């Protein structure tokens, strides 16, 4: 006991609270660094993109018919459209170096010979090809989005769309639709998911069957002749998946690669010949664009950020030769959007960060080419303006002596320099004097601005500020260390033997930390938790049986303990079977699917049954613990809860959403819980009349019982009906665990109890159907009982539904509290010491367990930032880890505050009693 006197209650609280605050700061820093919120412009760009930033036209374009809109755009842009139709051929997974070579070297001979027609087009100048560098993750859907919108999306863009996959941001497909274009899509059905109802004709091909390399492309090509012959479309999208599949099967040098490239070359020849045939002089022709969404590694996979994976192709071919131009053929994939927009006379999408590929526009006059650069600059300038508030370019005065500092000023100066050069060139030009050098200097000035602006804007999306992230991790690791050492300092008997189940509990954490590095283990985390919790309880069972055999059957409540553990194990198994969960095996049957097949009658009756079951369990556990003479207390509690219970039963049986009733239930439950918490410590008799012990323990127990009952009743109301039985089973598990621990006998350490409850809570979380993906969050339940739309309340309800299980486990800690410290203390009640003994473990153990998982997972996320699954698996899991952290904070705070309040009240009453009687 002596070594504990150094760690007083005040110090413990101080260190814990400061560790928690450091953890919150570290977490916030990391989140801000890893998931940057880049300001975006909403809506679609319209007429204002043809005027400089700051001028907003009054005309409302939504009322204009497509034809009129098209001519208005044409008038304002000042650039005549070079083509009037576009064929966009996406070859999935084609690295640009197969076609263009790398670093001035031509492509491998095999590939050159496989695509003779394309090489001839490139050689004769009819086609120009670019290496269009893609941003990670190099997976089809994000890359298609970047191609059509010119914006590099991050995780938050994915998360905000988790209800729908339709692409709602401004993009060229939507812009072209606005001016009345008819579109046909043949190929990867991802396009149909991104742009539902935008295509007049389509034949979507599933991207699921990776082993098929022939049929998947044949399904696209079979329509080709018909489509090339018809004239009713303006945009034809062909998305060939075959090459990507060839890569996945056999790698870059697969024997199927050359034949596939030949097949693609045949398609290109067919399309190009058709373009030449239908080309009429003095009429806009058709432009053929061959692009790829990403490349592939040597082994044929993609998703990361290596050169081989990000090396995408952007090739432009038409009926006429492009004028001879210099050989700068490096660009970015996001440049495609602005180029296509300017080619066809529509406004550049509003969040575009790419710069126009000028060499495609060599048919235009100098004046018009400068106009293109001007339009692109205006659009980028508008986007930059959203990053800096109070930014108006006209206000800055730029001297050439100013240092090129980062920030609004340098962009502004760079743009103004280009604009003034443009103006002076234009005035010279109007006086008919040809000024070649002047033209080049204007182009260079614009390119300088465009280059730096584009780079800066892209880096806002993709750069991870390593220092910020490292600082965040350091803060979180520090807090974890502080909490763990506090836990060790709290340990009373350092020398006692460690049992197998205790080492197992520690081992679980290590195993969990290790498993986080594997994406499959994260996707199927429910199996891990169930496995670990069941194993833990088997070990506890073994220990109980051992002690029974050693001590003989006279240890009291031994059969009770065995039954409790078996109940936990059985409930756990049923919970595991209720929802299949995970990502990879969701098609397997589980109990909830069987119930849904049976029909709503079964589900509703089961719901009703679960509510009654819960009520019976709760009443039983209350009566079992409190002795008969406390009957008045018991009666009072049951009466208080009777009303909400009856209302819930009515609500469930009528099966209609009666908002007023539900709000009354919320209010009743809330008031009863808070009321009991506040009033009970005062009303409960201070001393137990028979045993002459302080009834502090009983008071804490009853408060815990209240929390558990309120929470369970709330869940009955909020969870989906098919989830009601699992909630009941979860309650049984928690109550059985409590019962097991409270039946003396085998002496189990306090931290083992808390950790076991925490694990049961986590296993139950997955048992209720939650997974580590955002799709399983029950959004519908967040609107139960709300009459007017409120994001905050919906958010709270969603949190309550999703984190039902961990919170239940944390709150139930109150039902098995070690209150000996209160009884053992003497007249002068040392409040600090009592609180430390009572609250030390229950508060620290969940915090420590959660901190370890948080720090470990943050490091894993940082290491995996360029992994293929970073946005689909690792980031959603991180959101869940953060939410679990919040849940643990809230649960521990509630427990700590309740016990502190009760303890203070009891101590005061004791002092009062002692002073009056003394």
């Amino acid at each position, binding site marked *: 006991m002596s070594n504990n006197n150094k760690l007083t209650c005040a110090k413990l609280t101080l260190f814990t609270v400061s560790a928690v605050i450091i953890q919150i700061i570290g977490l916030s820093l990391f989140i801000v660094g890893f998931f940057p919120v880049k300001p975006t412009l909403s809506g679609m760009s319209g007429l204002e993109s043809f005027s400089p930033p700051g001028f907003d036209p009054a005309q409302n374009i939504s009322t204009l018919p497509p034809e009129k809109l098209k001519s208005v755009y044409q008038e304002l842009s000042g650039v005549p459209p070079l083509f009037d139709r576009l064929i966009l051929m996406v070859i999935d997974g084609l690295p640009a170096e197969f076609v263009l070579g790398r670093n001035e070297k031509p492509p491998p001979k095999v590939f050159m010979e496989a695509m003779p027609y394309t090489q001839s087009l490139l050689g004769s100048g009819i086609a120009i090809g670019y290496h269009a560098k893609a941003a990670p993750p190099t997976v089809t859907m994000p890359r298609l989005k970047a191609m059509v919108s010119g914006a590099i999306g991050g995780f938050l863009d994915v998360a905000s769309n988790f209800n729908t996959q339709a692409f709602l941001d401004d993009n060229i497909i939507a812009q072209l639709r606005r001016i009345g274009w008819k579109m046909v899509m043949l190929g990867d059905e991802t396009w149909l998911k991104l742009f539902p109802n935008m295509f007049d004709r389509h034949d979507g091909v599933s991207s699921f069957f990776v082993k098929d390399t022939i049929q998947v492309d044949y399904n696209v090509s079979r329509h080709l002749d018909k489509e090339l012959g018809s004239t009713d479309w303006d945009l034809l999208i062909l998305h060939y998946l075959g090459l990507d599949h060839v890569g996945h099967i056999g790698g870059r040098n697969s024997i199927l690669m050359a034949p596939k490239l030949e097949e693609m070359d045949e398609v290109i020849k067919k399309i190009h010949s058709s373009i030449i045939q239908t080309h009429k002089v003095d009429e806009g022709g058709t432009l053929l664009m061959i692009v790829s969404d990403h490349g592939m590694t040597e082994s044929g996979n993609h998703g990361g950020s290596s050169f081989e994976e990000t090396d995408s192709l952007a090739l432009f071919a038409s009926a006429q030769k492009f004028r001879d131009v210099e050989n700068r053929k490096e660009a970015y994939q996001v440049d495609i959007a602005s180029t296509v927009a300017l080619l066809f006379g529509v406004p550049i999408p509003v969040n575009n960060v790419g710069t126009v590929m000028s060499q495609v526009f060599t048919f235009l006059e100098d004046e018009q080419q400068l106009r293109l650069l001007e339009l692109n600059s205006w659009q980028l300038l508008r986007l930059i303006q959203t990053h800096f508030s109070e930014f108006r370019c006209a206000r800055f005065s730029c001297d050439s002596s100013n240092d090129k500092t980062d920030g609004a000023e340098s962009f502004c100066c760079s743009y103004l320099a280009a604009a003034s050069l443009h103006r002076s060139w234009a005035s010279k030009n109007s006086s008919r004097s040809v000024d070649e050098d002047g033209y080049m200097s204007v182009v260079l000035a614009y390119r300088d601005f465009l280059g730096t602006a584009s780079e800066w804007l892209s880096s806002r999306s993709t750069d991870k500020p390593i220092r910020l992230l490292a600082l965040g991790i350091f803060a979180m690791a520090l807090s974890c260390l502080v909490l763990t050492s506090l836990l060790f300092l709290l340990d009373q008997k350092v020398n006692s033997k460690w049992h197998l189940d205790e080492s197992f509990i520690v081992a679980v954490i290590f195993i969990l930390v290790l498993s986080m590095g594997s994406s499959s*283990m994260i996707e199927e985390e429910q199996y891990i938790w169930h496995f670990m919790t069941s194993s833990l309880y088997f070990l506890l069972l073994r220990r109980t049986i051992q002690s029974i*055999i050693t001590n003989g059957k006279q240890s009291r409540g031994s059969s009770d303990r065995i039954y409790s553990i078996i109940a936990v194990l059985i409930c756990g198994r049923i919970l595991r079977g209720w929802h299949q969960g995970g990502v990879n095996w969701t098609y397997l049957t589980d109990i909830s699917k069987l119930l849904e097949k049976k029909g709503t009658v079964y589900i509703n009756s089961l719901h009703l049954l679960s509510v009654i079951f819960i009520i019976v369990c709760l009443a039983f556990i209350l009566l079992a613990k409190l002795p008969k003479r406390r009957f008045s207390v018991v009666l009072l509690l049951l009466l208080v809860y009777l009303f909400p219970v009856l209302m819930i039963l009515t609500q469930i049986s009528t099966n209609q959403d009666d908002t007023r009733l539900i709000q009354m239930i919320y209010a009743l439950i809330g008031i009863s819980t808070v009321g009991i918490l506040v009033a009970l410590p005062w009303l409960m008799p201070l001393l137990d009349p028979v045993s002459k012990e302080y009834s502090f323990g009983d008071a804490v127990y009853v408060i815990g019982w209240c929390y558990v009952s309120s929470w369970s009743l709330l869940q009955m109301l909020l969870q989906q009906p098919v989830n009601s039985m699992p909630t009941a089973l979860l309650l049984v598990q928690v109550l059985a665990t409590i019962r097991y621990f409270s039946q003396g006998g085998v002496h189990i350490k306090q931290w083992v109890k808390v950790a076991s409850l925490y694990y049961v809570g986590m296993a139950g979380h997955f048992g209720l159907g939650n997974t580590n993906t955002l799709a399983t969050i029950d959004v519908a339940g967040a609107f139960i009982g709300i009459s007017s739309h409120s994001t905050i309340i919906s958010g709270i309800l969603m949190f309550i539904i999703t984190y039902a299980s961990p919170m239940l486990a944390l709150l139930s800690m109150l039902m098995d509290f070690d209150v000996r410290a209160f009884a053992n203390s003497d007249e002068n009640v040392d409040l600090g010491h009592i609180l430390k003994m009572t609250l030390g473990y229950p508060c620290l153990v969940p915090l420590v367990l959660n901190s370890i998982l948080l720090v470990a997972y943050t490091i894993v996320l940082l290491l995996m930032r360029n992994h293929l699954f970073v946005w689909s698996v690792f980031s959603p899991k991180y959101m869940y880890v953060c939410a679990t952290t919040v849940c643990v904070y809230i649960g521990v705070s509630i427990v700590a505050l309740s016990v502190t309040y009760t303890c203070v009240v009891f101590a005061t009453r004791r002092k009062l009693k002692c002073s009056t009687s003394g």
Partner: protein
Amino acid sequence: MSVFTFTPAACVFGSSWADWHRVFAHTKPIGCTDFMICLPAYGAVIGAWFGAWPMPLDWERQWQEWPICVTYGAILGYLVGMVLSSGLAIFHNRRKHEKGD
């Protein structure tokens, strides 16, 4: 699983409850035969436990299905237990010989 865990013990101990208690409940095996029963039995159980780990991984191998994975684990654990117990027996004999000399 039952073959690995119970059968050897049943053959040797029969219905001697005290022996069963000693080996399985208290885990205090005495003598070579006890070791040869105890270690492989525990080995089989622990091996089966570890054998369950590859199951959630999505490598799409035939042997990852239930119960193949776990059975392989049990067999492996049993074999490891056998090897260990034989090793211990040999070691014990050597010590006895040395003491005798």
